[in-house]
């Protein structure tokens, strides 16, 4: 549940919420990191729950501006950051959801989204690239999904040239007419999307097909794509978006190499 860092609970009424799904390549979570770091969003609270694996560390966004807190601000496994001017909130999730608590976690999220009064929620996610079919191998690797409550955003997304995630055959080869949603490697994406459809929560899923590896380029792809819709950052005259990489992205692939190795 949400626990405010201050003495009073901040109001999120009418805000846009961005949250990542813990999914293949951790792309959603890395994208959330980029957004929080670049927009210098201060932390406004913790999402304290037994559904996630515990973790603690120092401020992952410190150094070069920080995000309100100094280097010694303790960071936990799920925190909420807010930008009141942009009417934006980001829930960053840093650890996996416990297998036995997936359903409870989804319920917890939906109930918090509804009680906070977010006008729309954007779920950043990814799916295994090797599960793409022949059609999906062509063109962009980015897809979107909209819950019925956010259907009016469809026009703007179609104008941007975005592709909706295709449904796959439930019984391939046997019965081609029955289609279902299939998001392998997407973590809670499919479940949360289904829950939001049932609960009439305005949700947009922005998803990237990718594989495990160095997912930093995938992150930039996803955040630039999201920025085209939400306009969180102005592009430079050269056409690129000035994202700021947080200090916690250092040493993604381990410590320095021992010189004696060579």
């Amino acid at each position, binding site marked *: 549940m949400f*626990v405010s*860092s201050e003495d009073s609970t901040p109001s999120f009424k009418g805000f846009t919420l961005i949250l990542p799904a*813990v*999914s*293949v*390549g*951790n792309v959603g979570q890395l994208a959330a990191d980029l957004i929080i770091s670049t927009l210098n969003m201060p932390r406004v609270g*913790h999402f*304290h*729950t*037994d559904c996630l*694996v*515990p*973790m*603690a*560390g*120092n*401020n*992952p966004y*410190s*150094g070069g501006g920080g995000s309100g807190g100094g*280097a*010694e*601000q*303790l960071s*936990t*496994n799920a925190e909420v950051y807010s930008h009141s001017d942009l009417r934006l909130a980001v829930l960053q999730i840093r650890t*996996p959801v*416990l*297998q*036995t*608590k*997936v*359903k409870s976690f989804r319920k917890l999220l939906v109930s918090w989204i509804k009680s906070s009064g977010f006008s729309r929620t954007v779920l950043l996610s990814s799916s*295994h690239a*090797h599960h793409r079919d022949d059609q999906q191998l062509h063109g962009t690797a980015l897809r979107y999904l909209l819950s019925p409550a956010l259907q009016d955003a469809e026009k703007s997304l179609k104008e941007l040239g975005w592709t909706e995630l295709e449904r796959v055959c439930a019984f391939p080869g046997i019965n081609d007419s029955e289609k279902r949603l299939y998001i*392998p*490697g*997407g*973590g*809670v994406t*499919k*479940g949360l999307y289904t829950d939001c459809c049932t609960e009439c929560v305005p949700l947009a899923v922005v998803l990237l097909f990718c*594989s*495990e590896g160095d997912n930093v380029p995938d992150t930039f792809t996803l955040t630039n794509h999201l920025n085209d819709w939400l306009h969180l950052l102005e592009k430079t005259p050269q056409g690129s978006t000035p994202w700021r990489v947080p*200090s*916690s*992205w*250092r*040493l*993604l692939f*381990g*410590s*320095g*190499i*021992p*010189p004696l190795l060579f």
Partner: protein
Amino acid sequence: MATYFGEVLSVYSRAVEEDEYDDLEDENEEDVQIRREIEEKREVQVRWCPEVSKTLESSGQLQCSNMIIAVGPSAAGFVSAYVLSAEGWTQVGWVSLWNERSRGSSRPDTVPQPGEPSFIIYQQNSSPSVLICQCTCYIAEDQLFQCAEKVLSSVQRRGLNVTVLSDSTLAEYKTPDYLNGSGTPFLRALKTSSYTGSMLCPLLEQPNIVTGLPAAVLSHCQVQRIPAVLFQCYTDVLHPDSVTMETYKPALSCLSTSVKLEACPSVEVLQKLTQISDAQSNLYT
């Protein structure tokens, strides 16, 4: 996934399990019943000795000014050699839990035997508001939150200060310059926002993180606004060793008024604690 040479490799993700979570949607009553039984079996219980139970019954929570939690063999060894041997401490409680690696609680109502992996709570005889917890058992990921919450909820939040001592391997420490082991073992600290004490060692640098019970305790304290500090000791030795244990000494120096430290524990005491790592026999002896 087929590779260039034609063999098929299974692809896995470091972030998510391969199975879709769909299976949980089609549960029948029997599945729900089994799941509930497993959940009950995995529940974490804090058990107290009769005197403390009586106190808890009347006042609901124990009064505690300082709680020290030692997690890991060297941290627990330090507490045994330097703290518990210095002056009178009484064992007042333990945490009983069951998981695939900690099956000790086939007798959940009995105190764990000495030497058994366990989570024991000691109270200082001269000052009953000081508690020490020694954790040497494995706590599964799904039990960490519950364990931290139940232990910390047994004591009053007001006036509480928490110190956590935790072991970690040097291999887990990320640094741009390769550490050749000359500076090990060393301490790094993490503290909650309400902790105002001075720092006795450097803070844990990004991108290093802390997981397990120390993380669960720290997260709970951060959210509940309890002043808490964690000292993580990075060592290159896998088993409890006396040099690693000694590294924790500065961590308790700020509590010297409440907790008396044994300056030089006897060799016998240290030998007993580090003996477990001796190889009984190997192929060459």
